[in-house]
């Protein structure tokens, strides 16, 4: 129920984000394009809304495969991705995306301890990703994403 409402809201706000960002003095330059990936649509959609309200241009993807496709399509500057997802997990998707978007900043976001091991595997393959722990208050998330 929330999904439908929030998903539609997310797409809606996507188009209006630019106008909101105009008034935001922090983002004088063009707003950052963010791809939000989470297999729980409620989380992905709420984060997209929060980011869009705060001067970002965000879009949601609900799985690793979908994230790779979306990244090709919208060419995001930042990918905020859940880690543990079925089929293609966040780390696999991030590595794939990083290959065709080497400039993109990738921030992983997880509520599971097993994430540590997955990240360790990525490190072995030469990829160092930022990791944020769920739950993270939206204000702190925004603060973190605005930092370079």
């Amino acid at each position: 129920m929330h999904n439908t409402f929030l998903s539609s809201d997310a797409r809606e706000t996507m188009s209006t984000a630019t106008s909101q960002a105009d008034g935001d003095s922090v983002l004088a330059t063009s707003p950052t394009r963010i791809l939000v990936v989470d297999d729980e649509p409620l989380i992905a959609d709420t984060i997209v809304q929060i980011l869009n309200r705060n001067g970002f241009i965000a879009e949601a993807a609900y799985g690793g495969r979908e994230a790779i496709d979306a990244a090709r399509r919208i060419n995001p500057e930042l990918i905020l991705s859940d880690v543990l997802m079925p089929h293609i997990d966040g780390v696999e998707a991030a590595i794939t995306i990083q290959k065709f978007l080497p400039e993109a900043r990738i921030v992983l976001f997880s509520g599971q301890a097993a994430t540590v091991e997955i990240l360790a595997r990525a490190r072995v393959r030469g990829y160092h990703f930022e990791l944020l722990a769920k739950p993270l208050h939206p204000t702190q998330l925004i603060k973190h994403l605005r930092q370079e």
Partner: protein
Amino acid sequence: MGSDSTKAFSPDGSQNEQRLRLLVETGILLASERSLDVIVQAALDAGLHLCSARYGAFFYNNIGDNDKSYSLYKEAGPDLNIFATVPEPHCTEIPKDSFLNQLIVRSPDITRDPRFTENLPFAALSPNHPPVRSYLSVPVRSRAGESLGCLIYGHPDVDSFTPASEDLVATIASQAAVAIDNLRLSENLTYEISQVDAARALQRETSERLRQALDAAQLGTWTWDRATDLLDLDERAAYLFHAEPHAPITRTALRKRVVAIEDQAYTAENLERFLETGGIYTAEYRVESPDGIQTWLSASGNATFAPNSPDIIGMVGTVQDITTRKTQETALRQSEKLAATGRLAATIAHEINNPLEAVTNLIYLSRTDPDVPEPVQQLLETADAELARVAQIAQQTLGFYRDTTRPIEIKLNDLLHSVVDLFERKMVTRKISCTLDLEPDLCIHGLQGEIRQVFSNLIVNAIDAFTYPMLKPGRIHIRGRHLHGAKFGGGQEAVSILICDEGSGISPTARARIFSPFFTTKLSVGTGLGLWVTRGFVEKQGGTICFHTRTGDPSGTIFRVVLPVHIPPPRTASTPPLRA
């Protein structure tokens, strides 16, 4: 002597006197002699002279397991070599009367004696020698009537043995029997004495070994008499029970004096149950020394019974100090409890992190919606703050709060300053001042998020230690020092951080439990996880955490965290950390 007279007993007075003297002398000799050889030889020789026989022999009665045989043991007479050809007579070949019926046999001419048709000793002598005609056989019998052997005499002349010589030989035989009997008795006695000595030696050795085993096992022994309730304690038992060894004391009195209050009922009931059901008595309980030191003892015992009766009249048993084992068991149970609780907590935290994230986001969206009326926004802000607390619990519990996932060099000076900064507002509003006294370059290798969590938990506790309203401004002091060499286990380098507050102190009842999960004194605001998680992180880092606290005036608490500079390799499962 014998051959010159066919009459063994003549009226000649001097010969008679000579014989009596020989008899007496032989008797004295036999009575004093302690060698079977000498006894038999003396008896045989005396007999030979007394009956004036030409040949004499002593056959010894061998009683084997399945068989009886008679061995030629000694011979006497001028023609000793004639015995060389004498076969060892079997019982069937021997004068049955002498040996089996234990009668004296005297025959004037054995070769014509109708009583004896079978082969006899001396009857089948070498053809070079004149055959034995006169024959005298006298049994040697013990006092118990047992046949020891037989004295046999012979003479080539007919009718050479008189009733008088028979009597003399019989006297010699009885003297010999007494001597052999005595000899056997004395040998038996010697043997029995040696047996008793051996048994005593064995007993000594056994009891010595038992003592050594008891010493090695550090076991004390005790005996208890049910009727009088009196205990007898050996030295170690007395030491363990804080009593005098072998001083009479009743079990009830000893229990009341030394057994810890909480175990008094248990020990009394345990004894009653044992006395009803029997079996093996075992009990583990605490005792207290006069100066209040508590130790765990394990006592076990076996019932002693009245003769031919099932009634338990007492007990014998052992006692040992099991404090170390009990402490380890407690530590193990505690760590198992912690592990189980930790797993449970981690699982719960896992499951709630995602919904928590979603709800946090939803509340944020609602709260920041400009269309939401002011009162509702305030409600949502409260909800947001409450949710932040839930998030904090989840993070603490899961121990997932980390900005790096591998050990890095942590500058504790910076970290401590930043944590203090974080709580500065809180301290200012509560009129608490915080001072730091840190040696430069306090660096360790570790997981930054966890170490930050450790100190932020301790500082939050220090702030919460003050009771409000405060009578005077509170002070918190943080001190950091390098530890070198032997000050820390293994001689490696470490740092020591003290977090001191002048708060109200930790109550004695709370002290033992502050590191247990879900224990809190903060009632509505505490999670009961802070110090539990803190200790987990410190120990994972290879460090230690301890505290000193005072509730009297002046009150306060000092937490000391010692962290090795380098993180140790992970502990293996076989060596669980033991906490005192």
